[in-house]
């Protein structure tokens, strides 16, 4: 089976309810950084987070989503991961998706690292046996050692990122969707993670990665999609993107 993600003319309106709520304040703040906001009826504000996104991601692609804060990277990741349904347009996905969008999502801060590996594996619908058989490999890759016996609430963001990434990539996934939290890890871990993503692609898998780290893009990804104000500003190979950036800077 070939794996593919295809978005055709996808628009996404993000509805913000109750003008007095905390969430609206953050939506207004988003406007200053990049989202397009317009008023819908009454107490509801709508932010056009994505517009006219046409994107085809094929087997073997490691695609980077880049763009400044509020350009729509995470929203696009959530659309691809099936969390947000497009307001307009078509989305078709062939393959099993593993999404690691928010750091710490799906983890229980009170439980130990080991128990959380089981929890994350469970959410991937794996049997206890399968999880147990991989637990050593996960512990090893995360490099957390004895920290795995401590509750996750004692972990730093970097340690949580290590644990989540180790779990996300150890169990087979056709499509891996990662947000920029990966860079919470230190240089050595980012290096290791990059190698592992390369290996996943060799097994003809798809990786979609949102990031600000240009080095990471160049090391890991073969395609780049740059977003600006919810639209695709650039779509092409990593080499072309580097040239495009250089031209934009000049």
């Amino acid at each position, binding site marked *: 089976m070939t794996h593919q993600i295809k978005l055709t003319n996808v628009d996404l309106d993000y509805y913000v*309810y109750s003008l007095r709520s905390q969430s609206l304040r953050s939506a207004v703040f988003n406007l200053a950084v990049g989202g397009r906001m317009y008023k819908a009826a009454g107490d509801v504000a709508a932010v056009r987070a994505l517009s006219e996104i046409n994107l085809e991601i094929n087997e073997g692609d490691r695609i980077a989503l880049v763009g400044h804060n509020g350009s729509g990277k995470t929203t696009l990741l959530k659309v691809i991961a099936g969390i*947000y349904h497009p307001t307009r347009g078509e989305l078709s996905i062939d393959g099993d998706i593993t999404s690691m*969008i*928010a750091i710490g*999502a799906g983890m229980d801060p009170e*439980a130990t690292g080991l128990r959380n590996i089981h929890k994350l594996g469970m*959410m991937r*619908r794996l049997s206890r046996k399968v999880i147990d058989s991989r637990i050593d490999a996960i512990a090893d890759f995360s490099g957390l050692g004895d920290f795995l016996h401590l509750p996750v609430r004692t972990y730093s963001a970097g340690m949580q990122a290590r644990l989540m990434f180790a779990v996300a990539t150890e169990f087979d996934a056709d499509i891996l969707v990662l947000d920029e939290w990966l860079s919470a890890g230190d240089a050595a871990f980012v290096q290791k993670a990059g190698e592992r993503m390369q290996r996943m692609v060799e097994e003809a898998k798809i990786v979609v990665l949102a990031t600000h780290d240009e080095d990471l893009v160049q090391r890991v990804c073969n395609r780049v999609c740059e977003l600006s104000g919810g639209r695709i500003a650039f779509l092409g190979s990593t080499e072309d993107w580097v040239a495009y950036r250089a031209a934009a800077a000049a």
Partner: protein
Amino acid sequence: MSSPLMAAFKDVGDAIRLAPLWWRLGLDQTASRFQRSILGPFWMACNLLVVAFALAFIVGGLMGVNLRESYPQVVAGLLAWSLVGTTIAEAQAIFLYNAGLMQSQRLPLTFYVFLHAQKAATNFLTQLIAFWAMMLVLGRFAAPHWTLLPAVALVLLSVCFLGFIIAIPSTRFRDVAYMMSYVVQLLFYVTPVFWTRAQMSPKYRWVVDYSPLAHQVELLRAPLTGHAPAAIDWLWSLGTVGAFALIAIALLALFRKRVVFWL
């Protein structure tokens, strides 16, 4: 493009296929609620024991009814209420409690409703064991009538459909969420849990006769105390479950895509 109604049915179907996942996750969430406590999930059972004792004391003391007579009735009523009524209060948080999961993994909306029903069923089962243990100790144990099984199944269906009906508006309008705990409190007092229909003045008996919750409580309480429920309780319960199902599917079809933005 499939119609919203078909998409709603597909959502329910997908959630049914995910049964092993919400089953495990429900047990896991129940267990983690009682993390670091010694009694663990047995705290749920303690809740029933304490309230049953307090209420039986008041009912027996104030109303002059023999405590031994009213006790199994009151406790069975409370047990039934924990499935029929308390779940209404808990339903407002179905999506809010799982907001983190909803924003990080693709799962059908119905999944979270089933998760809620699973936790309610686990809670009910724990309290049921406590109930039987308590009745054995008091020498008032009555073998449950076989209709307990279909009655629990029907009430659980109602818990699922009511879950949608309460959780969807509660996520959109947070005031509904706060309101629900008071509504349930009110419903508790107008439902014959620690009083009986016969004690109510005939002028106000319609409160019991036309209350879907009263019929559901009776549907569970009768087999718990060893009798078959009355046909009228079956009819009312089946009818309300059907009505709830229609409303729930309509809400799911209309707002399925929107709920995640309301979190």
